[in-house]
């Protein structure tokens, strides 16, 4: 069975500093990987996804993530964060041919002035 681990429940970071949010997954088969962002009192929206090809994926709002198959990781990065990036970030995995998306427990990014 697939699972997703986001080890950091909260990440505080100062404005304009870089940030990395960690995501590790467990699966016996190839998977597709996603990062979503949830702003307060809103639904989730897609930041980026990895299906195949280049392991470095660029998304919206200056975020990028790198797929590392050997470490079963898909960490999210941004070189310089803004106050507006304060939100909950979710890593998710799906298995090709299934409709099931499994989410991690989320990481709360808090950007400090």
């Amino acid at each position: 069975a697939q699972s997703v681990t986001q080890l950091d429940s909260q990440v505080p970071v100062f404005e304009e500093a870089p940030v990395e949010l960690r995501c590790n997954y467990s699966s016996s088969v190839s998977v597709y990987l996603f990062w979503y962002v949830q702003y307060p009192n809103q639904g989730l929206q897609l930041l980026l996804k990895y299906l195949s090809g280049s392991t470095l994926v660029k998304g919206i709002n200056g975020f990028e993530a790198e797929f590392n198959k050997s470490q079963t990781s898909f960490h999210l990065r941004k070189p310089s964060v803004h106050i507006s990036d304060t939100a909950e970030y979710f890593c998710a995995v799906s298995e090709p041919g299934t409709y099931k998306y499994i989410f991690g427990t989320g990481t709360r990014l808090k950007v400090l002035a």
Partner: protein
Amino acid sequence: DTAVSQTPKYLVTQMGNDKSIKCEQNLGHDTMYWYKQDSKKFLKIMFSYNNKELIINETVPNRFSPKSPDKAHLNLHINSLELGDSAVYFCASSQSRAGTGELFFGEGSRLTVL
């Protein structure tokens, strides 16, 4: 135009009552989902329908019953509400080959059971 809309946005009710949450998507997607987000923000899949056919039915009490009258709608009915049902319920939809597409989420329906 809201892509995935849920009603109501807030629902406060007493234990033992029955309630429904409605979801509609105007994206032309084939697959719709219900997710439950608890107070710790954990998102758990509950149900999924593809072309009105139930394809995912996780370990959910049978007090929860989804209904998909057509591809654009997926409703959730909950009988005999319990305190533990308090959560935010998200509807989502997707297109594309299974597992590859982006999930489009509604804004959530916050259910509070007193």
